[in-house]
């Protein structure tokens, strides 16, 4: 195996940011953060900051793109110009096109698209601050925003990357671990059904390491999924409380 360019593990076996090998960074999720969007989510994941807005199902224009038997999902994953080390041009790069496509395909699998013929569900994601693992964080945020928009779903998509650092498989790579480590492996899935909707890797892995990575990722996704569920429930609890308040006022 090749060496890491810089030493990514401390003497005590912890990672540069003090995490254990299989530890996820702190995550916060908040839905309904935007007034204009039908659904929205603001998610922080370590130093990643991601905003997602969902519109739809709504009529698709131009009409010749519409599918008579189902809605289509359009996803735009973008990096803010200031979210990365070197200022990015506002025009999307090939990486952003690729990830938009993969995120769209992942979300497809949990949506009842046949319920909305000729329609579109539009998912706009902007990474405001990037620190590794943005596509997994984006998928996690998008699921919350879709639920927030009241769009019926078969389940949530939840993501978490794993990777290889100093010859060890670790969970949830940071930017520097991604860049200077030996490999990155983003995974996303419908945790409830075990259906994996996104799997990529680049780097150098043995097949055994890939298998270990998969199983670590699924465990981590389980943790994230719990938070995601709570974030969505929190909104309904809030609404219920508001309704309760309303009831009280009416009395």
């Amino acid at each position, binding site marked *: 195996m090749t060496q890491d360019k810089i030493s990514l593990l401390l003497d005590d076996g912890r990672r540069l940011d003090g995490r254990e090998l299989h530890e996820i960074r702190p995550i916060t999720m908040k839905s309904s953060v935007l*007034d204009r969007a039908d659904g929205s989510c603001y998610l922080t994941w370590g130093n990643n900051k991601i905003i997602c807005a969902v519109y739809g199902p709504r009529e698709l224009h131009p009409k010749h793109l519409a599918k008579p038997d189902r809605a289509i999902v359009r996803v735009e994953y973008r990096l803010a110009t200031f979210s990365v080390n070197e200022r990015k041009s506002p025009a999307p790069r090939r990486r952003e096109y690729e990830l938009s496509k993969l995120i769209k395909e992942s979300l497809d699998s949990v949506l009842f698209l046949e319920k909305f013929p000729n329609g579109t569900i539009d998912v706009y994601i902007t990474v405001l601050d990037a620190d590794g693992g943005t596509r997994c964080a984006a998928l996690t945020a998008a699921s919350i925003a879709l639920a927030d928009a009241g769009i019926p779903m078969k389940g949530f998509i939840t993501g978490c990357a794993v990777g290889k650092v100093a010859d060890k498989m670790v969970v949830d790579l940071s930017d520097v671990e991604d860049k200077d480590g030996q490999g990155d492996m983003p995974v996303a899935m419908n945790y409830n059904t075990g259906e994996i909707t996104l799997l990529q890797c680049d780097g150098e892995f043995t097949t055994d390491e890939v298998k270990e990575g998969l199983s670590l990722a699924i465990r981590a996704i389980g943790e994230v999924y719990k938070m995601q569920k709570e974030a969505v429930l929190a909104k309904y609890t809030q609404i219920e409380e508001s309704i309760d308040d309303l009831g009280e006022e009416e009395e």
Partner: protein
Amino acid sequence: MRSEAIVGVLEKQYVTKLLEKGKRSDGRNLLDCRPIQIIPNVIKKAEGSAMVKWGDTVILAGVKAQLGTPFPDTPNDGVITVNAEISPISSPTNESGPPGPRAVELARVVDRGIRESKIIPMKDPKLCVIPGKKVWILFIDVYILDDGGNLFDAAALGAMAALANTRLKRVVIDEDLEEVTLLDEKEPLPRKGSVASLTFAKIKDTIVYDPNLLEDRGKDARFSLAITDKGIVCSMQKGESGVFTEEEFVTLLDQSSSLVTPLLEKIEESSQFPEMNEMYHFDF
């Protein structure tokens, strides 16, 4: 007529009728400003940043700095450039793609406010590192995240607050080789004063300050002006198909100095905490 168009007409009738009675749809007086919150240094990867919540409008401004060559006609000046992204995130009617005329106008008006105010001394040796060869290029990008009306003032405030919180890497110059080294240590961007924007909307015969979304959509004309802490008008922009009279402009100019003060104060406040601070975070 499409349903949105009808909604637009009804909305405008509603706003206009209220204003004829001297009332605004959100209960404010004609020259009242909505509550404003500036949250500085929210973006770790940016050299400076600020989120602005202005009423229910939300924008995020970030500054990235890069060493580059100056423009041939201003070899001793650093470079500043403003770009605005009216993201589809901010409203169901916005489309993605390259900036349209609305975003271009917004960016250019914010740009002129900052540039013409001369509050960033572009010839300062901290910005003009090697005259004619290497200067700092400051990219200010403003993302509109939630369009609740009055994007001009919110964007200008965000850009200004982001600059007020910008810190550049220290530069060591090797004069012989004409090469520079960037240190990890950072120091604040030089700045002389500050500037803020005031936007008025005219709806039929009434002029309101800080239009909310209903007023923004229903307005006949818009007038924005940027004023420095020295009381200097450094940029004006009348927009939209409606008209103003000379008297109306004179009145707005007279009202401007009292309206700009609280904005300038907010900018200074926000720049008191220049370090990245975990306490600061988005709170939608």
